[in-house]
């Protein structure tokens, strides 16, 4: 078809001919584009299809007045019609070389080409050619000129040959690296006595310098152009990053509603809410929430819902309710508890009396489950690994501990200044203060909206952060004024206080409904978070003494030794973690004890540390401990042996690990990330070089790491 058109076109009316030609070309082009020939992938992209269209037909067909004369003059010379052929090569060539009109006019303002200070590429070309000729002469000198250069292959051979022949390669490189013109050497200049020759040398060198100046200038121009591009790209990236951040924030905000709704539906299905008038109201509201999210305020309802359930539950026998709800593991636990009851009757009655006199209600909270969370924060992935994301002064005095729910989510921090603050990590704004503890908080754990804090005042408090967050959102909407007038008790984030310990709380851990706390009164207590009851008390000292009598293992450190260290602000129970019925504790005597919570006995002790243990974590395979003795030890849980011993310059303050890395702080200005595969330590150094405070505590989740410093600053990094 194409060839027909080509032959006929001159003999027909020109306008008709061009139109037909255009059609022919488009159909040829589309035929080409539609073939499944993989070599022509380029032609399949819409961009090039358009380019072809523009080239061959013209982008603005209908906009220009189409007289024959204009078309004739503006578009193509007749000879071009004659020499048009519609081979694939020709069409792809046309597509590639075509520059659309908008691009053609998009020429940045700048100095004119006639400007003498700026060189053109053509001048650069001319300045490069002498160098090319020098290289060629070199090859020829090295007797390589016998090769024929008529085809490309041969020419390439010429240039690959020198890599095989080491000797000639060295000569070529040596000569090429010498900036002197090829026929001049420093020797020649020194020895020459002829003024004429020397003048020639001078001229040649000046010329070469001129060429170099041109090339230097052009190359530096390229650098500045690339800089401009990078700047543009950076700002583009920033804009996109902001978009991602916004989307993510919105997603998380909306997801909060989904959880709220599904949790309520679940609760209603279980029939937990008594069907009295009040509850009816709340379920009516729930339906409203389902159908009309935008007008209703879910935070308020969450609170009213809780109130309903609180009222309802307090009518029932709390003990009975627990046994109904508690999973099987805890049923066995409560049986255990009955046994222990006798042994610790006195203490139990004491706590019971306190419990009944001060707290009539068991803790009630609205737990948001993390299992059905669909949104994954991804923002931290767009930072370079190890880049500092943010840094903000969180407290006036040193951070003692903190925890956060997800990257750029909510963080709760505690400090020596005795305040507990809730932060929005994405904006680094303090949302609220958690008030209740009389002294500073030493340890805490956060699980979605649930937070447990352990304080110097020997109490533990359970907080429901969803109440705080709701407050914040209302604040955003400007509704705070109204909700603030409501009953204070409903919006109090502190839902329960665990008080039985008689000395400061130094470590705590909870999973599901099982809370364990370690105190300087040398006991570990196990609590039921549903009821607020203390299930059992483990006396570490008693067990230790017993173990030292019965166990053949020499602990290497007497209790007296640890007692002296205890005075120097090193807690006796430095750390603990539980998993179902297993509990691991690390104490100031350098011993890791593994407990069976069902029997309340130590089933294994791990010895090896020579200083107080400050932090530990375990998973199904291994247990990792950090100690004041400046070492991190990786224990094989099955063998009970030290798998790895990592020694550093200073005492380990905190650690966290997963299968790939161990993140730890060791009283330096940086936070260390140990790669468990390569064994390399990557230090996350503060951006500000003058920052000298020491890192106390670090936690990370999903590539997002937060570090707390002794001067109250919190920093976040991407890892």
């Amino acid at each position, binding site marked *: 078809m194409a060839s027909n058109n080509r032959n006929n076109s*001159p*003999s027909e009316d*020109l306008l008709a001919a061009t139109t037909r030609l255009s059609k022919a070309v488009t159909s040829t082009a589309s035929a080409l584009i539609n073939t499944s020939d993989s070599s022509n992938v380029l032609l399949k992209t819409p961009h090039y299809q358009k380019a072809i269209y523009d080239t061959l037909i013209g982008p603005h067909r209908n906009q220009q007045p189409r007289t024959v004369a204009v078309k*004739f*003059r*503006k578009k*193509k*010379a*007749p*000879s*071009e019609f004659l*020499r048009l052929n519609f081979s694939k090569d020709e069409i792809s*060539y046309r597509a*590639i*070389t*075509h*520059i659309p009109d908008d*691009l*053609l*006019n*998009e*020429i*940045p303002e*700048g100095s*004119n*080409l*006639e400007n*003498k200070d700026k*060189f*053109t*590429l*053509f*001048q*650069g*070309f*001319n*300045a*490069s*050619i*002498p160098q*090319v*000729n020098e*290289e*060629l002469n070199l*090859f020829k000198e090295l007797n390589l000129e016998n090769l024929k*250069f*008529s085809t*490309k292959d041969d*020419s*390439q051979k*010429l*240039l690959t040959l020198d890599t095989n022949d080491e000797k000639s390669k060295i000569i070529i490189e040596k000569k090429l690296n010498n900036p002197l013109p090829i026929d001049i050497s420093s020797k020649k200049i020194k020895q020459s006595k002829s003024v004429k020759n020397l003048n020639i040398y001078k001229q040649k060198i000046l010329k070469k310098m*001129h*060429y170099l100046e041109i*090339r230097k200038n*052009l*190359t530096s*121009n*390229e650098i500045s*152009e690339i800089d401009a591009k990078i700047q543009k790209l950076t700002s583009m990236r920033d804009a996109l990053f902001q978009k991602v951040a916004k989307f993510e924030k919105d997603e998380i905000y909306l997801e909060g509603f989904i959880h709220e709704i599904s949790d309520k539906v679940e609760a209603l299905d279980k029939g937990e809410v008594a069907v009295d008038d009040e509850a009816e109201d709340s379920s009516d509201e729930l339906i409203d929430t389902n159908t009309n999210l935008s007008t209703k305020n879910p935070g308020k309802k969450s609170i009213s819902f809780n109130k309903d359930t609180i009222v309802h539950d307090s009518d029932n026998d709390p003990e009975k309710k627990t046994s109904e709800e508690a999973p099987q593991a805890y049923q066995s636990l409560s049986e255990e508890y009955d046994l222990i009851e006798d042994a610790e009757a006195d203490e139990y009655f004491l706590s019971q009396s306190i419990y009944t006199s001060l707290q009539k209600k068991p803790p009630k909270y609205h737990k948001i489950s993390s299992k059905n969370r669909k949104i994954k924060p991804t923002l931290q992935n767009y930072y370079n690994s190890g880049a500092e994301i943010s840094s903000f002064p969180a407290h006036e005095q040193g951070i003692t501990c903190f925890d956060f729910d997800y990257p750029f989510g909510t963080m709760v921090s505690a400090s020596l200044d005795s305040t507990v603050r809730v932060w929005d990590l994405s904006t680094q704004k303090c949302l609220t203060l958690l008030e209740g503890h009389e002294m500073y908080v030493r340890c805490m754990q956060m699980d979605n909206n649930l937070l447990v804090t352990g304080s110097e005042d020997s109490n533990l408090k359970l907080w429901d952060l969803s109440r705080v967050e709701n407050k914040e959102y209302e604040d955003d909407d400007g509704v705070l004024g109204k909700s603030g007038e409501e009953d204070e008790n409903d919006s109090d984030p502190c839902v329960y206080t665990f008080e039985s310990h008689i000395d400061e709380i130094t470590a705590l851990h909870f999973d599901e409904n099982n809370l364990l706390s370690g105190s300087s009164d040398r006991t570990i207590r196990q609590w039921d978070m549903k009821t607020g009851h203390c299930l059992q008390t483990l006396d570490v000292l008693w067990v230790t003494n017993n173990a030292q009598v019965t166990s053949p293992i020499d602990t290497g450190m007497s209790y007296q030794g640890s007692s002296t260290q205890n005075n120097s602000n090193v807690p006796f129970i430095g750390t603990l973690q539980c998993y179902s019925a297993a509990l691991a504790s690390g104490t100031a005597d350098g011993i890791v004890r593994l407990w069976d919570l069902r029997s309340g006995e130590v089933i294994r002790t791990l010895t090896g540390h020579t200083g107080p243990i400050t932090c530990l974590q375990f998973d199904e395979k291994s247990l990792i401990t950090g100690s004041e003795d400046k070492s991190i030890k990786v224990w094989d849980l099955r063998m009970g042996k030290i798998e790895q011993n990592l020694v550093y310059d200073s005492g380990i303050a905190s650690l966290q690990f997963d299968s790939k890395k161990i993140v730890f702080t060791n009283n330096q200005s940086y936070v260390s990330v140990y790669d468990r595969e390569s064994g390399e330590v990557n230090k996350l150094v503060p951006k500000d070089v003058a920052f000298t405070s020491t890192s106390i505590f670090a936690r990370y989740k999903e590539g997002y790491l937060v570090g707390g410093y002794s001067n109250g600053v919190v920093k976040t990094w991407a890892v």
Partner: protein
Amino acid sequence: MTKKDSVNYLPALADAYDPLSAEQLEILNQQVISEGEMASVQSKFNYAWGLIKSDLKEEQKLGVKILTEVFKDSPQRRRECLYYLAIGTYKLGDYSDSRRYAEALVNHEPDNAQAIALKRMVEDRISKESLIGVGIIAGTVAIGATVLASLLRRRR
């Protein structure tokens, strides 16, 4: 290379018809290849211009392709690239493209004598060809009319 070129900031048309040796071209090519993805604009241009100077149509086309790339990649170099593209396409016989480029350049630099000269030259070339074209068409129409007339006459 003649010495006068280093004074000129833009090539004359004659420069485009002064081919490099195959070896020179190959070295320019190797330069681009050795720089890989990081090929500098200057290296690319050197090779492209070397190709445009060639006598072989395929090489000239490749040269124009690379030049187009440079034009798209490097906004700061667009003005001069228009000039080189105009020459390259002129040499290939794509006069309408050549004219587009030359016009765009003159629009941006109305005082650039070399650009104006180039544009005029391309326009001359096109109008010259147009005359030939009109001649051909006039001729064909005349012949067609004669044939038609003779056919009609024969029918009568």
